[in-house]
């Protein structure tokens, strides 16, 4: 059997382009022979972006507060549910089994996402930089997963571009920043007008 052209790098994740889920697309990353393929899928169409290993300049993983925010939201929703269960369990008289099951199901709706959110680890935004663009890789939303993907990408990019030691980067970055000087447009000489007669239009001295 022929080897597939693309190997999966990340699982499919939802990328929301708007406030509503109807505009959400699913995004995933795939490894090609000489490039990284990003697929944005609506289910009926797919959009592709190719990042050739020889063109990738940098990959940035930046931690964010998304996990903490979701933890707070889920905990705020979970506390009343836990209170509800505790009230039923410790109240005088036999607890209604049906109500207990209902409250358990409702509690699990918030408890399971809370556990999963913390099991997956810290959240992040991941960016890929080329000479012409900086693209967010939405499918890499957890630091641990992003680091795993980076570990797979690193040797492929190094194979296409060569190695770069961490010690030489600062000096080369400074040199690069100094090389690019801002281009200032030459200022045109202001035109001088002679006004001898206040009623006549302005005239050039020559």
């Amino acid at each position, binding site marked *: 059997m022929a080897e*597939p*052209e*693309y190997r*999966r790098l990340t699982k499919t994740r939802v990328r929301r382009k708007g406030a509503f889920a109807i505009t959400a697309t699913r995004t995933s990353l*795939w490894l090609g022979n*000489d490039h990284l*393929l990003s*697929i944005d*899928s609506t*289910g*009926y*169409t*797919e*959009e*592709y*972006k*190719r990042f050739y290993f*020889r*063109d*990738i*300049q*940098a*990959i*940035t*993983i*930046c*931690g*964010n507060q998304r996990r903490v925010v979701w933890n707070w939201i889920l905990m705020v929703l979970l506390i009343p549910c836990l209170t509800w269960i505790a009230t039923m369990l410790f109240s005088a008289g036999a607890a209604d089994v049906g109500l207990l099951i209902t409250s358990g199901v409702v509690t699990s709706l918030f408890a399971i996402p809370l556990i999963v959110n913390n099991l997956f680890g*810290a959240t*992040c*935004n991941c*960016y890929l*930089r*080329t*000479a*012409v*663009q*900086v693209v967010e890789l939405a499918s890499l939303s957890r*630091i641990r997963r*992003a*680091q795993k993907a*980076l570990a797979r990408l*690193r040797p492929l*990019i*190094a194979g296409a*571009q*060569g*190695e*770069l*030691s*961490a010690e030489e*980067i*600062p000096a*080369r*970055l*400074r040199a*690069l*920043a100094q*090389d*690019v000087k801002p281009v200032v447009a030459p200022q045109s000489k202001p035109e001088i007008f002679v006004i001898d007669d206040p009623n006549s239009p302005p005239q050039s001295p020559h």
Partner: protein
Amino acid sequence: MTAPTIQCPKCHASLFEGVFNRTDPVPCPACQRPLQIEVFPALFRKMASGNTGELILTEGEAACFYHPQKKAVLPCESCGRFVCGLCDCELNGRHFCPSCLEAGKTKGKIKNLENRRTLYDSLALSLSLLPLLIFYFTVITAPMALFISIRYWSAPRSLIHRTKVRFIFAILFSSLQIVGWGIGIYFLVSNHG
């Protein structure tokens, strides 16, 4: 074009040392947000200047198809026309003229230029399954699903490996719906008759 320096995505402070090619995230010196930045040699590579093409100096030299006054440097790998340095479009080591490159993109002949595909197999399967929720719609959607399945049977599917199983199921379900409607209409007509 992107800025020549690496910046923190959050606070946009220019970063020069301490955060590059580490194994674990380190706080950004400006905003303290955890950062892990992997820098590759392409960042320091100079952008290649574009070739404008040489003018023909001696008579009898091959000229560019698009610029008769310029010297041809190689033939297009698709159409064979001679092109000058200005018209030579290189893509993964292959050389094309601008019109072949454009045609390759619009007609999908050059796979690496394709940036969008319609998944007709998913469309056909959805058309054959989703309208079952409101059964009466299937009288329209079942023939549509069957038509799409047959019309786009050979159309390119997703770039990532995908089989024709969606088309097969779409044909199966839509055919069953059409047969169901046929039997229903037959019984209606025969009962009234």
